């Protein structure tokens, strides 16, 4: 049996015991990160309804719903380096399905959410298939085209609001609001419901990241050669990632529809998908905190600005600059910088070595 520990790192001649310890430490850190996420979201779910007024709780519902979509973007970009510029369009598609099923068939809310997720999952996978062998830039363009196409279609058809027929549009009489789940009729309750969904989605993604899928995605990101020589089925894992990101978008759309009650066909332009991507990157694509920050940026910042009578367009300037900043100097986004700062602080306090 060969053993090179003495020569490779003379100060750390490690035996199997130390390896076990190191692995256990790594595993517990992962677990701790996940529990921190649950704790943070629990705090938000409990505290925010008390602290926020009626207007703000509605904004925060949307923010948390959008965070789910941002999680999908972060997955594709952070794990696979793929740029998707149609996430908001997929969100719209999911929202459309949820609204149509809810108004037309009176299905329970959860089923509508799952159906929305499944629909956008499927569309996402279809979008991803041609991406398999494409230069990253072409994927960005394909998704931008899809977003543009969706914009045209949804502006013309609008969202279902209680009517008959394929499009489910009501003519003349009052437009319906989407039925919320029986347990979550009030805004405060619905906010908690959305946060729970967000926690579930983020947990699902974390589970992927820490297991076989995450490792396979990392290999694909490294390069086709690395992935193939490790036996990774690139088609399978890449399509799966697209599907999961699409699922996030669809669920997000359904949650948004439930929160706002109605969706406006004029609010799903290509620009919105671009903004979703930009803010997901700014929020941070390598950590679960990123999508939460992205959701807040997407909805809470504009609300904040209008509270202070500042033009929302200044937010656009800020977001554009933030994207450039994130790309140039801080690729891990706000979340990454926060986590890095907190970890450094913790090390200094506890005195633990690197």
């Amino acid at each position, binding site marked *: 049996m060969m053993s090179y520990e003495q020569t490779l790192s003379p100060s750390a001649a490690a035996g199997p015991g130390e390896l076990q310890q190191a692995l256990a430490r790594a595993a517990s850190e992962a677990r701790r990160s996940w529990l921190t996420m649950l704790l943070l979201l629990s705090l938000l779910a409990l505290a925010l309804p008390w602290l926020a007024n009626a207007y703000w709780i509605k904004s925060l519902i949307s923010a948390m719903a959008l965070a789910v979509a941002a999680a999908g973007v972060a997955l594709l970009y952070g794990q696979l380096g793929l740029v998707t510029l149609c996430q908001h369009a997929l969100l719209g598609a999911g929202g459309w399905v949820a609204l149509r099923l809810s108004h037309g068939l009176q299905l329970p809310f959860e089923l509508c959410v799952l159906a929305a997720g499944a629909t956008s999952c499927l569309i996402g996978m279809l979008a991803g298939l*041609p991406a398999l062998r494409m230069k990253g830039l072409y994927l960005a*363009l394909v998704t931008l*085209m899809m977003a*543009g196409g969706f914009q045209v*279609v949804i502006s013309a058809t609008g969202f279902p609001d209680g009517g008959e027929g394929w499009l489910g549009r009501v003519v003349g009489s009052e437009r319906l609001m989407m039925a919320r789940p029986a347990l979550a009729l009030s805004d405060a309750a619905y906010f908690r419901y959305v946060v729970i969904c967000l926690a579930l989605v983020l947990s699902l993604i974390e589970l992927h990241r820490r297991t076989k899928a995450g490792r396979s995605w990392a290999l694909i990101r490294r390069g086709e050669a690395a992935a193939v020589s490790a036996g990774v089925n690139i088609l399978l894992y890449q399509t799966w990632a697209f599907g999961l990101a699409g699922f996030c978008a669809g669920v997000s759309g359904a949650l948004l529809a439930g929160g706002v009650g109605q969706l406006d066909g004029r609010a799903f332009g*290509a620009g919105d998908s671009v903004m979703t991507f930009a803010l997901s990157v700014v929020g941070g694509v390598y950590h679960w905190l990123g999508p939460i920050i992205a959701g807040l940026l997407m909805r809470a910042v504009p609300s904040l600005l209008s509270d202070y009578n500042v033009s929302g367009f200044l937010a*656009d300037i800020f977001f*554009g600059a933030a994207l450039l900043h994130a*790309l140039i100097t801080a690729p891990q986004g706000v979340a990454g910088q926060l986590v890095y700062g907190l970890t450094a602080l913790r090390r200094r306090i506890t005195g633990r070595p690197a």
Partner: protein
Amino acid sequence: MVDLLPFLVSGLGIGAVYALSGVGLVVLYRSSGVLNFAFGALGAIGAYVAWSLLDEDWPQWLAWASAVGTAMVLSLAYGRLLAPRLSHRDPTIRSIGTLGFALIVMGFTEWYWGAQPRRLVLPTDAEALEFADVRLTYTRVLGLALALAMMAGIGLLLSRTRIGLKMRALANDRDLSALLGLRVLQVDTVAWVLSGAFAGVCGLLLANIVRLQATLLTFLVIPAFAAAIMGRLNSLPVTVAAGISIGVLEALAITVPGFAPYRTAVPFLVALAAILFFRSDARKA
């Protein structure tokens, strides 16, 4: 066929702008490796500058010059100040950076001038050519002529001048060109400025043809992307042909019963079809 003529002509008008935008995008991509998502936004801000000047009764030629100049200056600013900070990253990121720039320019435009749609009325709109049920304002004639001139000009520049040769060399192999002593910065500057000029002209024409509104103009660049993709981000003649075809098809789509509200989806459909059919050329290296 006579019925279709007005649509054909109007399609040619907007198709020429798509073609011109496509050329502006491809020339820059080939020289610097960056696909400028801010192309439309640069055109938009140029158009607004022209609108402001015309509103103050400044002469038309000054308005045109300022529009194009604004776009050129901003394009140059990005190309020399921000693009180099991303030059070592992969091609997708370098292009995504221009998305950030687009948001900044678009946000500023909407903040300063407001988001309500306006008409960009140019003095050349007053006169028009009329034949066989078709009315072509002088602006459109000028636009078409300008488009043809610029496309021919860029073709000549690339094939007959030294700077054009350098741009082609850079497009072919950036690192090798640098090693061979090509002044990359100098050529880059020319590429960004030229692209900005195209953006400015296209912005003015589109604002005149459609309407003056920042978000609309920014994303009206997407059909130009469609044209550029069909040229495989490489061939200028194909890009031009594609742009014109997309414009014409989009206009003709109005005549298809029931399809009219969706006709602006034509560029996207065409582009998607092109990408799917030309997948083999879009493969990773």
